[in-house]
């Protein structure tokens, strides 16, 4: 199952100013992985995601994409790497002045020479994939939060990216939509071979789709576990990891008085 290394993180420290959020992160995401970044609130999951997608520079260390160090390479190479990304932001981050169709069409217009009619077809396809067929001419303000998220996913998939990043994809979705999203993520990986990196707390999703993960521990400020979450649940001895994966049922008392 394990493909070639797609993302390699080496000795990464991250923080804001002099404040260190996480230190010494080392992990590899292989091609075709569904990789979960998990950890308690405020541990730096979203910050790590920002570093991986090129929005924030790490304090130290490297992020390698197929051998090229993202933060040390030249801007052209960095842009080439970023073209391989599709990103679903926490709230969808749709451009509010554009319709859903225009939102999805923009990456296609920017990076391809497709004709307007071809772009329209692709837009309709992507919207159908996320269950929003017929919503082409709606503005983001006219649809619900869950729909915005799905439209954001359609935009993230516009260019059939090699690597998809998801920031809390299930947050704010009803259980059925959440399940459908999990199915879609699995389908994307199986049919397109995409590598998928997800920041989430949603245990049901984690166990249903992930084959690799890291756990960021807020107390020790580093990653304390990595690997298949199902294996971690079965084998990990780390109390904080067990506590997280069992919703507090194991891994020590909830009471710390």
């Amino acid at each position, binding site marked *: 199952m394990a493909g070639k290394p797609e993302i390699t993180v080496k000795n990464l420290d991250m923080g804001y100013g002099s404040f260190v959020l996480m230190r010494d992160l080392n992990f590899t995401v292989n091609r075709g992985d569904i990789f979960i970044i998990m950890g308690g609130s405020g541990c730096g999951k979203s910050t790590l995601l920002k570093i991986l997608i*090129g*929005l924030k520079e790490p304090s130290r260390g490297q992020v390698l994409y197929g051998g090229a160090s993202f933060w040390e390479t030249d801007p052209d190479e960095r842009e080439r790497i*970023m073209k391989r990304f599709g990103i679903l932001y926490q709230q969808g*981050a749709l451009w509010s002045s554009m319709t859903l169709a225009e939102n999805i069409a*923009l990456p296609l217009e*920017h990076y391809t020479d497709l004709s307007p009619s071809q772009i329209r077809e692709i837009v309709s396809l992507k919207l159908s994939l996320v269950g929003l067929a017929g919503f082409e001419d709606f503005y983001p303000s006219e649809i619900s939060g869950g729909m915005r998220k799905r439209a954001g996913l359609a935009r993230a998939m516009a260019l059939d990216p090699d690597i998809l990043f998801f920031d809390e994809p299930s947050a704010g979705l009803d259980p059925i939509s959440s399940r459908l999203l999990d199915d879609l993520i699995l389908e994307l990986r199986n049919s397109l071979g995409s590598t998928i990196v997800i920041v989430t707390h949603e245990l049901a999703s984690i166990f249903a789709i992930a084959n690799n993960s890291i756990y960021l521990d807020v107390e020790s400020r580093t990653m304390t576990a990595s690997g298949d979450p199902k294996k971690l649940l079965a084998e990990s001895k780390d109390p904080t990891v067990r506590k997280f994966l069992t919703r507090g049922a194991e891994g020590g008392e909830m009471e*710390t*008085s």
Partner: protein
Amino acid sequence: MTNEKVSIENKLSFFQSPEGTLIIQLRGDWKIGNPLPSADEIEKKLTAGARVERVGFDTRELKAWDSGLLTFLIKVKEFCSQNKIQLEAEGLPEGARGLLKLASAVAERKGARKEIKREPFLSLVGAMAIEFYRSTIEMISFIGEATITFTKFLVGKATFRRTDLFLLLQECGAQALPVVSLISILLGLILGFVGAIQLKMFGAQLFVADVVAIGMVRVMGAIMTGIIMAGRTGAAFAAQLGTMEVNEEIDALKTLGISPMEFLVLPRMIALVIMMPLLCVYSDLLGILGGLIVGVGMLDLGLIEYLNRTREALNLTTFGIGLFHSAVFGVLVALSGCLRGMQCERSASAVGYAATSAVVTSIVSIIVATAVITFVCQVLGI
């Protein structure tokens, strides 16, 4: 006051057993809003006299309770754990026991509490100087980036949506006409009145036309339009971009490899640079109309006479200086609005701050630019 004291004392009493157990008896209503005893009394009781090994509660006469009781219990619990005294919560109501357990279920995270440090004066001055340096560098690099982006636009390599530009042209132009009309006519009237009072003393009423025409066309029309656009459009730009920053829309553009400078700032800059001179000409005309109302209505000047005088007072240089002012103000308002919007942090209050800051920056830069242009015109003798 005395009644209150009595009622507080009635709520709390102590009983100490010879085995070293202090029983705290709680009575009456322990609800927020009622006068409640302080936990300091427990502290006094525990530290004075014989050593207390355990603390227990008797709540048989406790009638009602809420968070008022819980805050008291938490303090007692903290004091007991500090002094290694065993706390026996069995005597408490079951609900209070549960909430007390819940309140201490998750220990306070190390380093989570903010320390309030009083910075020395010199350190504050230093921090402010560093912040000023940082914001100046940020502003200069933003202007530099905007210049590069504008150059890219001139050679046809900038990416932005034409429909966005047309919408912005409409927003900055046609939709601003009502407010520009009102302010410009009033400004013309004011200039006319002020001039009329002074000039009437010398019997030179006719020169009101000169005062209004030169004043409006050379500088006042451009300044007023600039200030209106700073308050109306500059603030709107900052709020729009600030909200986009909050909603991660700008991040989405960046990660897609689309420059926010080209996609968002450039069309706004172009729209204002095109529309400001047009609005300025419109404002000049309405200002002259305002002056004409004063001249014809109050000073009994003839309509044709006033218009002829206006035409004689004006020349192309004056008109050109006014247009130059307005084009510069267009750039300044667009840059200030966009800069503050792009600098916006991720909160609702930050969007408000960005809008306010955009207006202040625009108006200050308009006044400074006017001073510079006036000085240069003076040196050039125009």
